[in-house]
């Protein structure tokens, strides 16, 4: 499989391997810590010196998904023995489960807003990038620069105008509002990245399709899109990561209906002080969708672009 002009020696390979693994461990350390904390008891989580070896517990996950209230030992006794394993965990602290927490809803909001805005950014970005790449657009360079310039300041710099505008338009704390906002922020990145990818696709393919009896749009759909898949996939990942992790606007513009998980997770309060295992559990689960998404699209990211079939 591996093919290069000069095959590296096995010693070079070992050194490269050690460096890569070392770097990976270093960057993964906080992640490992978060995942571990999610499985600790609140006492273990704040123990000093920190506990590396501990007895795993699902307390954090139970607390993440439930709301609980404290009851007197007499009332607790009157309830009889716990019926489920999570009941049992909660009752150790003289508490009973009163219902589900809001984590599930907030998570769903993140999914809707994150994937919705990613789809919209990539969809609009692809169309705009195609037009910029293939057509004579008047003032093309200026327009492209203008699109890029929207990223030259931190988006949060316009927080106040957006806050006021959203309040006037009734977009505050709505899914639509958040999708539009994240799309607006992501669009410049999406247009620029995708234009680069589409520029790399030789125009000869579309010309061949035009001759073969297809319209311009059909040629775009049948010939350009499949070849831009790599670019679309990587752009989608970048857009999703931004929208998924965005914190500042989410705090500012959402509080109820459309609140996403990032502002919600730190507000998880336990019995006495922060419930760190529940926070860590929330963060761990929150990582999963983006990991799955990235792994699913990895094939496209690694495949690269084929130039093979055009004689240069």
């Amino acid at each position, binding site marked *: 499989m591996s093919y290069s002009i000069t095959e590296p020696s096995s010693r070079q390979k070992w050194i490269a391997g050690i460096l890569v693994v070392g770097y990976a461990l270093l960057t993964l350390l906080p992640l490992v810590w978060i995942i571990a904390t999610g499985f600790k008891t609140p006492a273990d989580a704040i123990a000093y010196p920190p506990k590396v070896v501990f007895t795993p517990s699902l307390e954090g996950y139970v607390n993440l998904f439930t709301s609980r209230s404290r009851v007197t030992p007499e009332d607790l006794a009157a309830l009889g023995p716990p019926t489920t394993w999570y009941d049992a965990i909660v009752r150790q602290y003289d508490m009973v489960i009163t219902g589900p927490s809001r984590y599930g809803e907030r998570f769903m909001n993140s999914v809707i807003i994150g994937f919705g805005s990613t789809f919209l950014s990539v969809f609009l970005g692809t169309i705009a990038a195609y037009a910029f790449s293939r057509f004579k657009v008047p003032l093309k360079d200026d327009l492209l620069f203008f699109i890029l310039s929207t990223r030259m300041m931190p988006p949060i710099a316009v927080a106040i105008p957006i806050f006021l505008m959203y309040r006037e338009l009734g977009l505050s704390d709505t899914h639509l509002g958040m999708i539009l906002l994240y799309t607006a922020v992501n669009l410049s990145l999406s247009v620029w990245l995708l234009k680069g990818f589409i520029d790399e696709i030789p125009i000869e393919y579309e010309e*061949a399709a035009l001759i073969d009896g297809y319209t311009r749009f059909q040629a775009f759909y049948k010939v350009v899109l499949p070849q831009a898949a790599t670019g679309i996939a990587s752009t989608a990942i970048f857009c999703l990561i931004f929208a998924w992790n965005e914190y500042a606007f989410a705090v500012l513009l959402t509080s109820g209906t459309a609140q996403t998980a990032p502002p919600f997770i730190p507000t998880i309060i336990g019995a006495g002080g922060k419930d760190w295992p529940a926070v860590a559990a929330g963060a761990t689960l929150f990582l999963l969708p983006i990991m799955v998404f990235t792994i699913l699209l990895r094939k496209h990211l690694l495949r690269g672009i084929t130039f093979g079939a055009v004689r240069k």
Partner: protein
Amino acid sequence: MAEIILQGVSKSFGPQVALADVDLTVPDGAFVVLLGPTGAGKTTLLRMVSGLDQPDAGEVFIAGQAMKGLPPAQRNVAMVFQQYSLYPHLTVRQNMEFPLKSPLLRTPKEAIAAKVAEVAEILQISHKLDNKATALSGGEMQRVSIGRALVRSPSVYLMDEPLSSLDAKLRADLRIELKNIQANLGATFLYVTHDQIEAMTMATHVGVLDHGRLVQFGTPREIYEQPVSIYAAGRLGQPHINILPADLFGPAPHGAVYIGMRPEQIRQGEGQDALVKRVERLGDQTRLHLAFKAHDLTTVIDAHTPLRTGDIVKIEPHRPFYFDADGARMV
């Protein structure tokens, strides 16, 4: 009926003139070969007919119908690109099916399979049908791109050096196949090549382009035997025509500046002495590189000639061409 008519077609790319006021009539069912050195405007002319580019001035008619504003799909032309561009995300089979599946044709499944198999057979690529288009040699790619044109039956085929990267044997086979297809379908072909044999054997007409101008149009024999200029004479003939000062061999007609002689216009064994500088044995023919009064010229001789470098042969012109100072032929 698919006669192609170009009327005063001009095209420039910025300051670069690619086609200048070209008038050309390709009769229905003709096989027209376009000749011209690189940059002469051959590809540009095909693109005007296909509709991929629009002329700056002038009009294109196919089968009597004005093509202005019609997209390529509506013109019923097939084109083999010089840069044979196979769809890299498809297999060879899918590439060849692609035109048949177009919304214009909507060919039924069985007909597609049969047609692709038939064309693949002709092009000798049946065994590669399930390869990815990128996993092919240059010659195989080129044949697939011809295949993509042949699966359809349009009234006009445009081919831009379709056989350029094939070996001699395949080229000879496909020359005959293409000629058969053209004869059987009665389709009109507009064909670009730099290959003399293709031009001479396949063409019913040859058009010579010079810097975007159509300088001569006629049968291959006419172009070869009655070239209008040094330029047109230089398009055909292997080895290349010898162009020398008109009076080199003796008195020349009034006004003649150059004498042009193809190998068969040089009679050997009579006339004046020339020095053999080099003998090139090509197998079927042997070329003599001669020095004559400080000028070099090339001719052919019997394949098994005993002549060697340093020998002397006598030569004289035999019904040569004369050209004036501008390179135009004098008759």
